[in-house]
């Protein structure tokens, strides 16, 4: 039963993913400029959330290092922009994210539970402060201007990165490595005792997921055009992907994307309509959602889907009865 469900899920994903990516590719021709800018933000958070889910979803290791890896990508773009094509800078941003995540992983992934969470948060703060100190002492100023790129170019790059993140997350989830990550999340000791090299799998998956975070940081630097350590290493960039993933639900691939879309749209609405009450209302909404939907939006979607299937089956039975008469 579970295997057949999994196979049908895989088949559904193989149809829905390409369709979604094609829709995203043609979207700029159909939507307004402001909608395109919102979509860039949605895609940026979707990449961060999916990357976070790739590793933290199955293992249960709550990483708060996203801001560090994103910020590193931003500073790669700030240092290299103008010297080489943006596509190359994005690749270097991704590679830098990989290298930093590898180092963070080697340092932290032997830790478990709350120690891992605190360490990843601490490392983000450390990198931010080191960059701030460096900029103040050797740069002469805290902030940097980054040569901007057009909205179209930024949109195209984040769409490509989103598609890549989605495909890689899907492949990892349904691979041998994905099963091992789930086993590690279920019981790390037992996983090690059936031949899984726990540390290697954790560190490499964590580093692989950071490629997309670093690359996205490099792209977003050209969209924001001015950066400083408080923007690049903003702690919200660590917390929001966690909230979005949990809100959407990590058990299904579409959960984190659903969570991202709803929360970014909600965030945009609150900032526009209630700028002074934004954080208060946003926080309250999150508390209500977490209390009422502990499994995330995925659970709600599954319930609706099940109800719809039952209704559809009832309708088919009625049609058959009418035909027989």
């Amino acid at each position, binding site marked *: 039963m579970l295997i057949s469900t999994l196979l049908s899920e895989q088949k559904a994903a193989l149809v829905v993913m390409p369709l979604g990516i094609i829709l995203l590719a043609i979207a700029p021709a159909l939507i307004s400029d402001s909608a395109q800018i919102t979509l860039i933000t949605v895609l940026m958070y979707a990449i961060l959330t999916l990357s976070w889910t790739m590793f933290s979803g199955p293992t249960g290791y709550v990483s708060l290092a996203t801001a560090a890896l994103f910020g590193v990508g931003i500073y790669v773009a700030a240092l290299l922009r103008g010297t080489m094509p943006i596509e190359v800078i994005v690749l270097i941003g991704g590679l830098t994210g990989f290298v930093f995540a590898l180092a963070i992983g080697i340092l932290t992934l032997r830790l478990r539970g709350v120690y891992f969470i605190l360490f990843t948060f601490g490392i983000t703060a450390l990198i931010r402060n080191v960059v701030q100190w460096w900029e103040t002492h050797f740069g002469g100023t805290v902030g940097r201007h980054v040569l901007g790129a057009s909205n179209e170019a930024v949109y195209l790059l984040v769409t490509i990165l989103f598609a890549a993140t989605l495909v890689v997350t899907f492949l990892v989830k349904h691979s041998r490595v994905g099963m091992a990550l789930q086993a590690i999340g279920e019981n790390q000791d037992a996983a*090690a*005792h059936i031949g899984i090299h726990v540390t290697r799998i954790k560190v490499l998956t964590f580093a692989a997921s950071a490629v997309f975070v670093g690359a996205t940081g490099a792209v977003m630097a050209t969209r924001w055009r001015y950066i400083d350590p408080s923007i690049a290493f903003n702690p919200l960039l660590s917390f929001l992907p966690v909230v979005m993933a949990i809100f959407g639900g990590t058990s299904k691939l579409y959960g984190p994307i659903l969570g991202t879309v709803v929360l970014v749209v909600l965030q945009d609405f609150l900032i526009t309509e209630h700028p002074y009450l934004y954080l208060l209302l946003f926080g309250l909404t999150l508390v209500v959602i977490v209390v009422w939907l502990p499994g995330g939006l995925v659970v709600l979607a599954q319930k609706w889907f099940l109800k719809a299937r039952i209704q559809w089956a009832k309708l088919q039975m009625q049609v058959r009865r009418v035909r027989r008469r």
Partner: protein
Amino acid sequence: MLEVRGVSHSFGGLKAVDRAEFTVGRGEVVGLIGPNGAGKTTVFNLISGAIKVQEGTIRFKDEDITGLRPDQVCLRGLARTFQSTKLFAGMTAFENVRLALMYGNPERSFRHKEVEREVNQLMASMGLLADRNKPVRDLSLASRRRLEITRALATNAEMLLLDESMAGLTPLELTQSMQLIGRLREKGMTILMIEHVMQAIMGVCDRIIVFHFGRSIAEGTPEEIAADPTVRTVYLGE
């Protein structure tokens, strides 16, 4: 097959294992008994690499495995079960065994059908085919214990460390479990088992090692151990 030589391990000031010495021969079923806190499970943790050996050496199939990680020990053919079963609760019984088969045999490249066939064969031989697609949380204690042994066997193990795999079973389940160990012995499996159920220990073991305060105090056949006055004093309380 397994040699434990002068192995010690302390937790702070407490010496849990104190220069332990014993061997297990190929194809033997050996029981490890002793009062609670005697250091039996710590010995299992040291052999399987779950905790580091502070002193002494452990050899398996003439190779020094002292200080190896659990996955390295497992890939050398030594698998274990746990006192409280440590199964992957979010997976089905089939998925638990499949994962062990895939990661326990890294030299093989599996095809989907091949994995399914092998797992089914193994589960059938262990009487678990009816539980194949059940989530672990829906299994009875006896099935869980049996599944943990199946998962260990799937790693291509030549030797099993069974940590109280008969605890909490009903008399019927206990008999079935003893028959299972008998079948594994007939297939040439080497087994070192910790057990408090004396009926099982006396019924299936070729040899018994008695542990007390982290070291072996007696060793012999079940009959010799039952008649040993030291064992009767420290273990049976006579």
